[in-house]
């Protein structure tokens, strides 16, 4: 029963919120689709918070994504114990990097009066959720050093069973508590995602790399405006 609640209902609810609210926010309130940068108010601590946090998290999420998309490759890689250890240690290091960044960020927001002004309740809820998630992830990595293999072998098929609308909780039902908590919190974050500043994850500056240097917008159609001449 609880398994169904946490590993079927919760994921679907979160995904529904993620897409419905996310898309409607992007379309109806494009102004709000950003994270409120605070670098302008404080620069040095900003570097030591945001840089390790983002790079650590991007690394960790990439490994998770690989487990989801190419589980066989991950399993093949992990066949050798040394390589499994390498992957686990890399993941752990990246997780710790993210944790250091997040702790610096929380400290920065607690200590500096200027930061308090630009941090709202939702930001605090999010920071706590992220802290819980990263700490749980690190604990899983320390206590269950087969995590990457497990993700590829069990979590990936479970997630695919969700995506193909034939949910099967058997894959995750026997997991240790730490892992289960990590999963549940992940879904909470995904569901909460579109209501928070996390929405900025969805905007990436892709056209910049190949657009023209200068952007010029015309209000008139220059080809047709002089048709009468």
């Amino acid at each position, binding site marked *: 029963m609880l398994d169904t609640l946490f590993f079927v209902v919760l994921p679907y609810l979160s995904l529904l919120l993620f897409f419905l609210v996310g898309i409607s926010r992007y379309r109806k309130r494009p102004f*709000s689709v950003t994270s409120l940068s605070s670098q302008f108010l404080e620069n040095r601590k900003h570097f030591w918070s945001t840089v390790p946090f983002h*790079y650590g998290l991007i690394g960790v999420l990439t490994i998770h994504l690989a487990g989801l998309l190419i589980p066989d490759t991950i399993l093949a890689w992990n066949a050798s114990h040394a390589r499994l250890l390498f992957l686990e240690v890399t993941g752990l290091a990246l997780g710790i990097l993210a944790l250091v960044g997040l702790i610096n960020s929380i400290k920065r927001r607690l200590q500096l009066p200027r930061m308090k002004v630009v941090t709202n309740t939702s930001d605090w809820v999010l920071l706590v959720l992220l802290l819980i998630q990263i700490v749980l992830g690190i604990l899983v990595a320390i206590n269950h050093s087969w995590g990457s293999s497990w993700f590829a072998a069990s979590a990936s098929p479970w997630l695919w069973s969700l995506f193909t609308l034939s949910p099967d909780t058997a894959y995750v039902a026997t997991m240790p508590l730490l892992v289960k908590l990590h999963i549940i919190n992940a879904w909470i974050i995904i569901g909460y995602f579109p209501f928070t500043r996390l929405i900025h994850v969805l905007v990436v500056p892709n056209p910049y790399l190949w657009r023209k240097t200068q952007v*010029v917008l015309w*209000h008139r159609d220059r080809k047709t405006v002089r048709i009468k001449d």
Partner: protein
Amino acid sequence: MEVRSQIAMLFHMDKCIGCHTCSIACKNIWTDRKGTEYMWWNNVETKPGTGYPTRWEDQNNYNGGWELKDGKLQLKSTSRGRIVPNIFHNPSMPTMDDYYEPWTYKYSELFDAPEGDDQPTARPISMVTGEHIDIEAGPNWDDDFSGSPVYAENDPNLDALSADVRQQMFEIQRVAFFYLPRMCNHCLNPACVASCPSGALYKRGEDGIVLVNQKRCRAWRSCIAACPYKKVYFNWSTGKSEKCILCYPRLETKQPPACHHSCVGRIRYLGNVLYDASRIEEVASSPKEDLIMAQRSLILDPNDPEVIKAAKENGIPDDVITSAQESPVYKFVMEWGMGLPLHAEFRTMPMLFYVPPLSPVLSGSKGDITSNDTDDLFNEIEKARVPIQYLAEILGAGSVAPVEYALRKQYAVRMYRRHLTVGDVDSATAERALFEADCTREQAEAIYRLTSLPKYEDRFVIPPTHREQAIEMLKDPLEHKQGTGFGFISPPMRV
């Protein structure tokens, strides 16, 4: 040739009295909201001085503008390749402390203070945190502070001057200053637009006004670092960039921008110029010493039939071309060679030009006696209190020649008018001054008229915006019938 129209500005520095009316006019209309308290889209600086934000001209620190790398133009802060790894923390981002922390006073303390022997005071409180602060800097903190070792002597423009010239500038009897009113230059090669990863900043094709689309801005902060003039500002409350919009709602209804309109000294001129957009990159990549002339070469003669033909082919309406023909900016910059761009070496090709100031009459010390060094009526340009080399750093991209040309012309006009009105300058002297300044009598008369006696409509020649065409192009006008009049303006909400 791709002809475009650009609204350009000209500030006559010789007329600026440093009253800050322009700044206040702008502030009251655009930047009295939360998050914008520290912003001065228009500000007036005392030169020599450190300016706002402090030492903004020092690009070794702020990394604004463009630089030439192997002959290729690239942003000094974060160009394409470097934006991705630096997206989370912009390495060249100025902070509020480079500007100042905005404050107000807790006036209630004047009334609530308990009875005592001392006058109650209203203590300053931060407009960011609401807490008491000690005020350490403000946007015009070095106002009129020439000669000060803390402010004037830290002016980055002094670095290039020889020790002799520097010492001469700060000799107590010679101390001089002038005002530099600054705002967004609405550049032809804007670094802010080029740097925006989201493409939120853009230049309007019809009039060249540079704007930030608030809905597309994602707070990457690149524009703030990239603008060498530090005229794009970060709203810390909404997390968006904001900048001077050249009062486009006013311009579209044929009114000059508020800063221009309110100018007490009537130093501000505004009008459009036609330019060749196909040569922007080539011109912006010119060697430093050629930049002033290269930028001028980009501006086209609006009376040239070839230019008019090409302008029409590019969809520029007739009345916009007529407006360019009457532009006071074109006269000052192109016909008379007196308008110079601010720090052309930043290579953004600013469209705000300055007429350099003629310094006040020179005096010096001879023993214990202070006296005028010269018997001339107006002091010679080479001996001016503000050394011409210093002006060249600000307005000549380091070259003296264009600044000297502009000053010599002003000098000649003064001599000529003195000859006509007072008569203590003889005709030969006036003629010689005109000859040396490459100026005819007719031109001197025209410069005098537009400098001293310009009417409102001489100073501001605003091209029609033709928004009606834009609407007709894009949509059926009848679609709006019965549909306008009510709407919703949403507050700047984060969620």
